[in-house]
């Protein structure tokens, strides 16, 4: 981009009537960063990045903050903050006030915090003697403040796995307010989490399409006790996070491969995993060694994050198309999600990626023993014709049981999260216990993350984040023109909405650039 183009782009952003002041400032910052050179890369890695075979999700060429930061809020509340000039809170009001202040100071790729803390745990010390009605009233005000002050669909909180009246209050307030923010993950431990609490969460999904459910024992196995799911299905260590999320387009790799499945796994896939690791390494080194984020940010200085709890996220997407391309190259008819042979090919691909990533050391990734976390990336608005992560293409899913069984074997590998969304008939409303059964079954089957939604609630899940249907309604005709059955069209439809009217709540991670 030369200076003239940069000026024109800046002018478009400044004069864009569909962007709020904050959105304009955010995109201007992205534009300025985009004028800088990319960290040094080999020719092959640079070319793969240019061709979008490897995608850095528009994080920018000069990373100056880690992508996902999970501050240890419990520690902050216990010790106070010199930087924020806040003493440790002594009651619930002070704690909520403390948190609201701190949220505004947590960096992220979107400018908004992706993690608000494990609410049931961090508030527990402050609710003794607070009756349920008072707790709910204070939490309600807090929820409204969070939604209005942090209007980004990737702002996320966690609860569970144990029973807690804070968790029950969170669900009740969320059902009442029906806000996009905050997104919620509910940690489920089949041994510990009571059925009626899971049922409470299920009935919350009926109203707000939240929470997501995660398999707590599996997460603890891979990440330790102190983990959280943040943003959109990203599970990471608390007190740490991820420097970057760089993803490999498996569809594109399969399409440029000459030959069959064996040589794909042995050579082509290995080559592009290495190139992706090179991009990740270059980005990490810039963040840590050049921008020196961990030396100046107050979260690090005050011990609320530490570099040794960070790693990077190695993302994959387009598995469905990759499998179909490879099956076709060998003259085999099966499709991913429907055919045992095709599914087997998909497992071989993710297993191979997992082995390669586990064998590739990366600097400043002590949060995962010097290796990247594997992540099944759930897409952004610009993905057209390529399926998110390791999902079965939307509209092409088999029956629920077959669907669960097809995707579950992948979940074991993706420590940093994997998203498969299940669409459930509205009859579930009258039988929430049935969803409790299915969630328990899915975790017994080895699933890590479980997300479902009904056709009839007021929210639609795009790539993993939420949009209110009423925000989309004016654009039905537009959506239909693009075909509403595919995932890509859904995201496209959303991006059209964002280009046509001012929206208070945005989804910055999935719409990283202004529409041009």
């Amino acid at each position, binding site marked *: 981009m030369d200076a003239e183009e940069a000026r024109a782009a800046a002018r478009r952003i400044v004069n864009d009537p569909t962007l709020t002041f904050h959105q304009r400032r955010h995109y201007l910052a992205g534009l300025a960063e985009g004028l800088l050179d990319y960290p040094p890369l080999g020719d092959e890695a640079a070319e793969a990045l240019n061709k979008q075979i490897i995608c850095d999700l528009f994080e920018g060429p000069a990373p100056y903050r880690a992508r996902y930061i999970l501050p240890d809020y419990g520690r902050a509340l216990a010790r106070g903050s010199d930087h924020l000039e806040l003493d440790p809170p002594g009651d619930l009001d002070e704690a909520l006030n403390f948190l609201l202040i701190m949220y505004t100071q947590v960096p992220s790729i979107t400018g908004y915090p992706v993690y608000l803390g494990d609410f049931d745990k961090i508030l527990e010390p402050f609710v003794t003697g607070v009756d349920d009605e008072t707790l709910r009233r204070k939490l309600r005000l807090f929820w409204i403040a969070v939604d209005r002050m942090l209007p980004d669909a990737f702002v996320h909180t966690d609860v569970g796995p144990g029973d807690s009246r804070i968790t029950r209050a969170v669900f009740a307030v969320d059902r009442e307010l029906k806000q996009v923010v905050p997104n919620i993950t509910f940690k489920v431990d089949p041994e510990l989490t009571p059925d009626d609490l899971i049922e409470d969460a299920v009935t919350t999904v009926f109203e707000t399409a939240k929470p997501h459910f995660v398999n707590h024992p599996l997460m603890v196995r891979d990440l330790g006790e102190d983990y959280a799911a943040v943003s959109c299905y990203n599970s990471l260590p608390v007190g740490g996070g991820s420097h970057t999320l760089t993803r490999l387009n498996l569809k594109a790799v399969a399409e440029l491969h000459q030959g069959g499945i064996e040589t794909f796994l042995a050579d082509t896939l290995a080559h592009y995993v290495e190139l992706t690791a090179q991009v990740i390494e270059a980005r990490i080194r810039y963040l840590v060694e050049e921008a020196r984020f961990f030396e100046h940010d107050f979260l690090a200085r005050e011990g609320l994050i530490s570099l040794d709890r960070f790693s990077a996220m190695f993302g994959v997407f387009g598995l469905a198309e990759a499998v179909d391309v490879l099956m076709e190259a060998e003259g085999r008819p099966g499709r991913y999600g429907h055919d045992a042979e095709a599914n087997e090919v998909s497992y071989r691909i993710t297993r191979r990626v997992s082995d390669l990533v586990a064998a590739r050391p990366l600097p400043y990734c002590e949060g995962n023993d010097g290796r990247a976390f594997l992540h099944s990336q759930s897409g952004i608005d610009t993905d057209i014709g390529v399926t998110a992560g390791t999902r079965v293409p939307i509209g092409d899913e088999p*029956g*629920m*049981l077959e669907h669960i069984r097809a995707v579950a074997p992948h979940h074991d590998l993706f420590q940093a999260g994997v998203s498969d969304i299940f669409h*459930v*008939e509205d*009859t*579930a409303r*009258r*039988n929430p*216990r*049935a*969803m*409790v*059964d*299915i969630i*328990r*079954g*899915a975790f*017994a*089957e080895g699933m890590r993350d479980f997300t479902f939604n009904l056709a009839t609630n007021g929210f639609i899940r795009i790539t993993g984040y939420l949009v209110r249907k009423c925000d989309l309604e004016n654009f039905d005709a537009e959506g239909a023109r693009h075909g509403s059955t595919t995932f890509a069209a859904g995201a496209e439809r959303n991006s059209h909405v964002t280009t046509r009217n001012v929206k208070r709540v945005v989804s910055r991670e999935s719409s990283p650039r202004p529409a041009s």
Partner: protein
Amino acid sequence: MTGERGLINRGLTNGGLVNGGPVNRGLVNGGLVNSGLVNRVLDFSLVDGPGNRLVIFVQGCNFDCIACHNPYTIDVCDSCGGCVEPCPDEALSLTFDRGTPEVVVDRNVCTECDVCIEVCPINSTPLARRMEVSALLQRIGSVAPFISGITVSGGEATRQADFVVDLFSAVKSTPGLDRLTTMVDTNGSADRATWDRLAPVMDGAMVDLKALDPELHLRMTGQDNAPVLESIRHLAAIGKLYEVRLLMVPGHNDSAETVKRTAEWLLAVDPDMRVKLIGFRRHGVRPHHAHIAEAEPEHLAILERTLRAVGLSGVVVV
């Protein structure tokens, strides 16, 4: 329409006789094995009892309800062969391998397009098959982590009571499956002896009550309702009545007065019983009954209030 027609079609002239009737007991591999004539098995159902359930739809029913949503499960295939030629997938063939005519299905080819059902002179299906308890146990075992229990629906579950007893007994005595609840979805026509055989291994029954008035019941089902009323009383008395289902068919059994009388009768049996009020939908019903109007939600709301006003505490509306 009378009960005799149903009996002739369903008991005496059907293919079930070829296999020894709807229930088949015999020695296989040296053990006593029970099998049932099964229309289909659904791994997940959110609407056939509490929680997520595996549902076994058996073939064959002694009622002929005007509002039946799966009328192809009423009669049992008599292997007349009339569906073999029309099958667009060429999945059906007529064999005499066992000495008598039998329509055989190639399930690798069948696309379940239902043409065979459309052309069947008795509105049955050649797709029902005999399934052994052991095979069903395996199927149940494979989905056990996902379900609260199993439900035998139909068709009429109690017409194959020996099979259901054996199936439920097997579930209750198999480690890993013994936590599953066992239920039947029934028209309530079984006699007390049948319920007493089922009771030790059955957690509950969901009983359809089409009409309290015997004349109306006969018009709507082709059968007398005295056994149904007796079943409801008996099941409630032995603690095995999970719910009574009232399917509201507009113009037939959905007047406020009719519903009020039904409610009073149910109240006398058990004021706390779970009563599910269901609005009639045309989906699946036979063409000659498809003129019946669908139930209006507003009217169902009125009937719900009627049920509650009488004093029933466990009313749910679908």
